[in-house]
């Protein structure tokens, strides 16, 4: 690497760090993106000026094609963001894997394959290809082109661990004798297969956790590539990435009060589905008219959105509702549970899309103390995140998961289509509480009706 290139890499690294630093606050976040872009441009430029680069034409072609493919990928609706992320992790993993593969076959004949390089390559391709197929599976499950429910079979974990064990043995073997080139394709194959098997038993709703785990794998693959190519930029950027993925998945697990192992091997969302038999208690339901009345007469309303709002794309209607109530001087806040929806921060993005100012969004820990004073808690397509069982019922699969105390509000109104359980597949006593009124129907439709009611009244 020439000094020029190395220095560019240095600057690029610094910019990547600032890019992430600036994400700590919505006001600086876009600057963060800019920094990231500049950093990436510098990285590419610095690499292109590297003397050993001889052919540019094809690279440019690849750039152009990549851009052409990339732009539409950025147009996906926000509900499809998880899939998109998964998909591009697949690309990232693939890239890492391919580079590792090529390096192996380049160095094999020339005998440049030191033990150390071989080890790095082995790690790179394992992580790379595993991430590739794994992410594809995840994307498939999220897009529901694949069955989202966990697919399990006897000795599943045994088989998985067997596979990965075998892969490691082969990797070690290669490290000590890189010339056994017939082992290399086997390694690749194992990585690809393992990626698939790893995701099979994981329920669709656990995908976000898995995705950010895959994100950190992709990062680590880049780090390994950095060790292979003795390239510091790859190492730093990869490390930033790896830690990010790791922390996000930890946050999600904590917020669900579950362990990594439980997420990865627990086949969650299947066993419990059985437990989802609702005892025959009766839930009171209300008409949009009544609901609109109650809302308008309230002093303070807390809206608790959940996955259902995302599915129904109800955020814009909710914005209208929010404005109607605000006009009437009702104090409206939104209570955001860290794992409401299907990815971290899911609700924030949707509500932001509907131009609801983010200073109206309150985090769980900040709103819970006030819930007692709230007149109306309007639950829009949320279920597990407001399930009181998490507080008191040891036997419940979500016991211990922190929830939003909607039940403490004077009146609770819950919008959902049926009495069906949510992601955790368990019944929710909140709906049977005396102070709860159900509003059955698609979230978008129901909220729409509420707004009509109010609009109607404001007219005559």
């Amino acid at each position, binding site marked *: 690497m020439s000094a020029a290139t190395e220095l560019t890499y240095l600057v690029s*690294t610094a910019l990547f760090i600032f890019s992430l630093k600036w*994400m*700590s606050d*919505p006001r600086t*976040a876009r600057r*963060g*993106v800019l920094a*990231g872009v500049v950093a*990436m441009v510098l*990285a*590419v430029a610095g*690499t292109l000026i590297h003397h050993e*680069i*001889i*052919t540019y034409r094809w*690279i440019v*072609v*690849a750039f152009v094609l*990549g*851009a052409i*493919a*990339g*732009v539409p*990928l950025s147009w*996906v609706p*926000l509900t499809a*963001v998880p899939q*998109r992320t998964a998909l*591009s*992790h697949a*690309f*990232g993993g*693939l*890239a*890492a894997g*391919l*580079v590792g593969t*090529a*390096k192996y076959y*380049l160095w094999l004949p020339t005998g440049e394959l030191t033990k*150390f390089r071989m080890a790095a390559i082995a790690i790179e391709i394992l992580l790379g290809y595993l991430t590739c197929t794994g992410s594809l599976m995840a994307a498939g499950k999220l897009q529901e082109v694949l069955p989202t429910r966990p697919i399990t079979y006897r000795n599943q974990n045994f088989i998985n661990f067997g596979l990965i064990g075998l892969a490691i043995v082969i990797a070690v073997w290669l490290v000590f004798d890189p010339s056994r080139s017939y082992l290399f394709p086997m390694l690749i194959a194992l990585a690809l297969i393992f990626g698939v098997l790893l995701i099979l038993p994981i329920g669709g709703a656990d995908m976000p956790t898995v995705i950010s785990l895959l*994100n950190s794998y*992709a990062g680590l693959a880049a780090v390994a590539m950095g*060790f292979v*190519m*003795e390239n510091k*930029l790859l190492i*730093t950027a*990869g490390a*930033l*990435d*790896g*830690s*990010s993925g790791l*922390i*996000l998945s930890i946050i999600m697990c904590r917020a669900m009060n579950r362990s990594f192992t439980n997420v990865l091997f627990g086949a969650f969302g299947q066993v419990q589905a059985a437990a989802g038999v609702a005892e025959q208690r009766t839930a009171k339901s209300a008409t949009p008219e009544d609901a609109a009345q109650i809302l308008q007469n309230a002093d303070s309303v807390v809206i608790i959105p959940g996955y259902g709002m995302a599915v129904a794309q109800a955020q814009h209607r909710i914005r209208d509702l929010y404005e109607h109530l605000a006009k009437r001087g009702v104090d409206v806040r939104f209570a955001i549970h860290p794992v409401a929806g299907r990815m971290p921060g*899911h609700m*924030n993005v949707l509500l932001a899309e509907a*131009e609801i*100012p983010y200073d109206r969004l309150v985090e769980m820990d900040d709103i819970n103390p006030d819930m007692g004073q709230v007149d109306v808690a309007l639950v829009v397509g949320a279920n597990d995140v407001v399930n009181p069982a998490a507080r008191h019922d040891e036997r419940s699969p979500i016991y211990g998961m922190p929830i939003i105390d909607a039940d403490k509000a004077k009146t609770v109104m819950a919008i959902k289509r049926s009495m069906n359980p949510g992601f955790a597949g368990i019944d929710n006593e909140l709906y049977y509480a005396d102070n709860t009124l159900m509003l059955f129907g698609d979230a978008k439709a129901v909220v729409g009706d509420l707004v009509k009611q109010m609009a109607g009244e404001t007219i005559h």
Partner: protein
Amino acid sequence: MSTEFISALFVFMLATFVGLDVIRRVSRLLHTPLMSLTNAISAIAVVGAILLAGEAETPLSTTLGLIAVFASTTNIVSGFLITDRMLKMFKKREPRS
């Protein structure tokens, strides 16, 4: 183990420290954009891909390299674009008033 390797380890360790610290302080509000931003950053693999494709040592390495370049570029472009698209939505002041 070459010094080159150890200094790489140093860089890796320090970068991880930085990473963990920085990410921990990202506002919950922005976790979804963060995911796609880091997703774009992970496309840094493009560097390795370019080197591979550009040095054009064997047809195999060049082709694999080019595919890798293509794949990573897609991530870079889509990753940054969608992140910015999401962030554009976050507004503090009341929209219409």
